[in-house]
């Protein structure tokens, strides 16, 4: 036979952002730590090796921060002019940076003075990177050239002069030591192969390219420039896969999350957007105080570091998980009690009797099932329920009304209990979605407690409050009706093409008003 059917809880659509696993994941960060740098933070780079320090390039300095430190643990400040693009090698022991004067300097993490200086660029070097074999450095400069340097003997190996404007971004392949990509203000992204001394693929982005990113597999390329973020399929010879326009100012930086499932883009519009790399839909978005120039994620997405134009570095750490077992855990039955009899093989003459599975019921449902109506109402009038989930309280009141026992449940309450009910009414009566149910409940309360009014000052005060609320609501509704009337006049004077399609007015207010007055 049919079991007990739990009371139907009316659900309401949650306004605002939908809660998905992505919003949960990306919101699970602590409040950001803000560090003031000397100038605009143009580049943040995490060391790929533990302890995952990060290098911050701002003005003429490179600061290296520890994971949780707010003070730099090391500073490279031997630049005559602005430094650019401090990047760690894969093993985390070397750091390369370009500078405004056209020099490229290689540092040891432990040392202070540069190990190598690559001279050859005539203008500012905005992008440098290590190739996959660790022994070469790629650099792009404002003199339209891209150069490949050998670290051991600090010599220039190759020069590519294919770009026709500033080269402002670049990225070396993680797999192939000979491949790297550069983006330029001439609106192109070019992939170079060190074995052929010319570009192998060139794609037209359409805007000055601010940032490029090769996916770990090397088959996809993301390029950012203008308001656009474009994904290219390199295995198909640079075919455009998607073009995304989700920012309303120039996109300045790109980063891939550690799982490779999400792509992050920072922009001058002060937003960081998170995209899914399967559907290329925005799944989450962060807001920052200033225009964003650089962005980096630590290993396992533990930290998000964002550098902004006003020189502020925002560092967000992931909340540490599982602090729950601080409570002394109750001793549970041993494992063998749970598996007891589970491995028993059914004999031929045995009859299997299944224990009927017990359905979990909420506490109020258990009370309702046993017709303890007052208790069920008490349960949902607990402060934890009324504040967090008023819709449950309202649904139970509605259910009691449907069963015809609402008056029984509301009757026979003392001062404390009735004031709890009245508090709930005062808070929620004016909400249109709860109003029909609560007005009915309020009427019943007034009917029941009218003879005893004047005995308790607390309850009387609540009743006066409720009265004031209702009066205010009536005034409000009248105003709304007046507005509606004015709008109707306006609509009536307008010439309409069709007499049939009428705008839907919000007549809820009108209905509600009538109820109030009655």
């Amino acid at each position: 036979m049919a079991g007990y059917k739990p009371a139907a809880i009316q659900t309401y659509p949650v306004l605002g952002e939908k809660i998905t696993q992505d919003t949960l994941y990306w919101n699970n960060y602590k409040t950001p730590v803000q560090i003031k740098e000397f100038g605009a933070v143009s580049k943040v780079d995490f060391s790929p090796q533990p302890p995952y320090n990060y290098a911050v390039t701002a003005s003429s300095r490179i600061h290296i921060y520890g994971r949780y430190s707010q003070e730099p643990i090391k500073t490279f400040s031997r630049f005559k002019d602005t430094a650019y693009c401090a990047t760690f090698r894969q093993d985390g022991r070397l750091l390369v940076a370009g500078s405004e004067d056209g020099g490229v300097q290689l540092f040891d993490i432990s040392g202070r003075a540069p190990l190598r200086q690559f001279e050859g660029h005539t203008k500012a070097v905005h992008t440098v990177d290590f190739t996959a074999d660790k022994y070469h450095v790629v650099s792009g400069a404002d003199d339209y050239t891209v150069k490949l340097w050998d670290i051991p003997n600090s010599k220039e190996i190759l020069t590519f002069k294919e770009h026709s404007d500033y080269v402002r971004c670049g990225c070396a392949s993680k797999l192939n030591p000979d491949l790297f990509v550069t983006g330029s203000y001439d609106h192109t992204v070019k992939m170079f192969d060190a074995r052929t001394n010319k570009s192998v693929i060139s794609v037209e982005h359409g805007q000055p390219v601010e940032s490029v990113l090769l996916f770990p597999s090397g088959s996809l390329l993301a390029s950012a420039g203008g308001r656009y973020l474009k994904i290219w399929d390199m295995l198909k010879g640079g075919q455009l896969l998607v073009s995304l326009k989700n920012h309303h100012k120039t996109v300045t930086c790109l980063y891939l999350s550690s799982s490779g499932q999400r792509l992050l883009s920072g922009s001058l519009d002060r937003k960081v957007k998170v995209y899914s790399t399967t559907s290329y839909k925005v799944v989450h978005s962060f807001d920052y105080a200033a225009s964003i120039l650089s962005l980096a994620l630590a290993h396992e997405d533990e930290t998000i570091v964002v550098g902004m134009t006003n020189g502020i570095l925002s560092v967000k750490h992931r909340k540490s998980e599982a602090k729950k077992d601080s409570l002394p855990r109750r001793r549970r039955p041993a494992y063998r009690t749970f598996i007891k009899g589970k491995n028993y093989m059914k004999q031929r003459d045995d009859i299997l009797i299944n224990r009927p599975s017990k359905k979990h019921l909420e506490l109020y449902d258990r009370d309702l099932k046993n017709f303890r109506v007052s208790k069920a109402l008490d349960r949902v009038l607990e402060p934890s329920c009324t504040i967090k989930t008023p819709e449950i309280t309202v649904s139970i009141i509605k259910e009691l009304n449907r069963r015809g026992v609402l008056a029984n449940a509301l009757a026979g309450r003392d001062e404390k209990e009735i004031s709890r009910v009245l508090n709930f009414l005062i808070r929620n009566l004016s909400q249109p979605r709860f109003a029909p149910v609560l007005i009915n409940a309020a009427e019943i309360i007034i009917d029941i407690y009218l003879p005893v009014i004047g005995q308790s000052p607390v309850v009387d005060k609540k009743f006066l409050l409720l009265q004031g609320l209702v009066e205010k609501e009536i005034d409000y509704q009248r105003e709304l009706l007046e507005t509606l009337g004015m709008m109707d006049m306006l609509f009536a004077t307008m010439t309409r093409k069709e007499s049939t399609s009428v705008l839907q007015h919000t007549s809820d207010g009108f209905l509600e008003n009538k109820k109030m007055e009655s």
Partner: protein
Amino acid sequence: MVAEESVRVVRCGGSELNFRRAVFSADSKYIFCVSGDFVKVHSTATEECVHILQGHRNLVTGIQLNPNNHLQLYSCSFDGTIKLWDYIDGILIKTFTVGHKLHALFTLACAEDSVFVIINKEKPDVFQLFSVKLPKSSSRETEAKELYLVLDYINQSPKCVAFGNEGEYVAAVRDFYLSVYFFKKKTTSRFTLSSSKNKKHAKNNFTCVACHPKEDCIATGHKDGKIRLWRNFDDGKKYTYTCLHWHHDMVMDLAFSVTGTSLLSGGRESVLVEWRDATEKKKEFLPRLGATIEHISVSPAGDLFCTSHSDNKIIIIHRNLEASAVIQGLVKDSNIFTGLMIDPRTKALVLNGKPGHLQFYSLQHDKQLYNLDIIQQEYINDDGLIQIELTKAAFDCCGNWLATVEQRQEKETELELQMKLWMYNKKTQGFVLNTKINMPHEDHITALCFCNAEKFENPTLVTASKDGHFKVWILTDDSDIYKKAVGWTCDFVGSYHKYQATNCCFSEDGSLLAVSFEEIVTIWDSETWELKCTFCQRAGNIRHLCFGRLTCSKYLLGATENGILCCWNLLSCALEWSAKLTIRVMEPDPRSENIAAVSQSSAGSDLFVFKPSEPRPLYIQKNISREEVQWGVFVPRDVPESFTSEAYQWLNRSQFYFLTKSQSLLTFSTKSPEEKLTPTSKQLLAEESLPTTPFYFILGKHRQHQDKKINEALESELVQLPLTENIPAISELLHTPAHVLPSASFLCSKFVNSLLLSKETKSGEEILEDVDMEEEKESGDDSDEERDFTEKTQDTNDTDLGEDIIHQLSKSEEKELRKFRKVDYSWITVL
């Protein structure tokens, strides 16, 4: 070819199973219940209907086992006859004509040749209990005219009469009286509840009575929920009674168990209460039986109970209060709001069922398929409660979507309205809730229809409401990267001068939507939702609206409240014809152009079948029902009939079913629909299908063993065809290990040949034997004498035949087989 009989209105299944107490057979294997003019025999184990005993010409009002022969069943009916049936074969044995309307039937073991019936002779409200002597004559139809009055002024319901203590007395209750008639003393004592008149609100009217089977104890149920146990009532003064009180509402029925140790009671709470030793403290419950318990009965063997419920179902309950089987008929709710629909997938009739449910009812099998819980809330069975009503439902053309509307209105201004959309899930083979829309309209929804054209890949639903709007709902893709989902959203809201929208209808190809606003019909383009044209006849509000189909798709039909049927031509936008007809039901046939309309007049309801293209009806049947016809539907036939007569051709492809105000489901047919019911084969009931219960393991094995013995005994007598055991050569062959035998292909043909009969015997005797075998199977259930007879005949036939075979084999084949054996056996014996 179907003989051209006249089409007549027939009742088609769905009759009340809960009209009277169900009766168990002596071995609890079958359960009998009344079902309209028939008695149905169900198996208690499989719930299947085994037989339908048909022969009464009016409602069957009582059934009882023949106390002298427990393989026979008495039934009585309003047609004034008592019939005696052999229920195992479903044969009518005898008919006794009494001549009065019989309201109930009782039998007693001690009164061998008479039964008791309730008759009202003079006044309409005065019922009497009579004893009827059944004359012993061999003719199949006899008159039973010997009536003896037993008790006067009793209640017509058989619940209010009970025989007690092995037939020593009979107790009957009515209003505030309990009358007991003692057969030996031939006296009547009457007990009146003293408090009945003093208190105003004491509702202690008697409702039912039951008598203890062994002791002098009568249990009576009362309107206020009390059960009184009466003792010492043979003395008029010294009687005592005790009270048992658990029910909060009327006690609907009472029954003592066979031994009398426990009393069962039930009522509106739909809880079966078992009172052990007739004490207040020892009681057990079986709750949640779904609907009001109307009747309780106990099997003579004592192992089963059954309860009949107001929602037309019978629940068979084990002795340990565990429901074991449910026999469910068509649920007859008091108000059918949804009308009759056909589920396109199962071709089942769909209508309101249990409160808050839609029932799917198979017309072919007269069986409920399943209930779909729409409202999904606990049903509180209480007086004066305003329940949530399921008011509208609609299927789309392929049965993928179901839309339902439910409402509850407590006061004028407080309307709760909810629309639910259900998607058919192929995996679970059922409907799953997809979208729930709260308050889809401001006021009552008057009509609901899906766009049925299949070319529309996007399902579209239109709702019309009293708030003056009609809304178009479409299915939209709601999926994101996390999950795939579809949901329904409102696409368009239309209105026409703030008139109430009363009806809506899509044309066959889905290109046009007709919505009627009170007196005006508006036509909308379903692509752009533009108003195309309006029709207005000023002849009252439009009650029904439908488009013509197939060749008549350019016509639109509308029936108004003032009794005008209009047909508009959509091409010329003009009235084609109109007729004066008060139409209650207008249904288009999905397989043809025909439209059936049922009109209501003072004399009764008339049926008109017509094509929209011409105002002259194809077929008219006057007076199809005396009552008002509420709903009708065309059900497409699986196999088209071929009526050659022009008047009946409209019945070729579909059948028209309609529901009257008293909830009887009727149809048109040239033959009884019961003939077409798929007969449940007897094999279904065979012992093999019995569930393996603990009893089976104890008794079943024993029985199997016995059966085997019997079989062996039979074999020795009858000598059946495969006689391998009797031929030593073959048995040796079969018992020799396989690895020492020659290859099977070598042996096969000879072995098979050895089993064949020789040519001489084949011609005549084999055929004869086959016939005998069949006969034996059939006669198994017959009376003993007959069986003896057949067995004897078989004996004489078969013994010589069997000898013949043995003879044949031993001569021709044994040698061959021996040869192989000799070859191989030598080394085996050494081992």
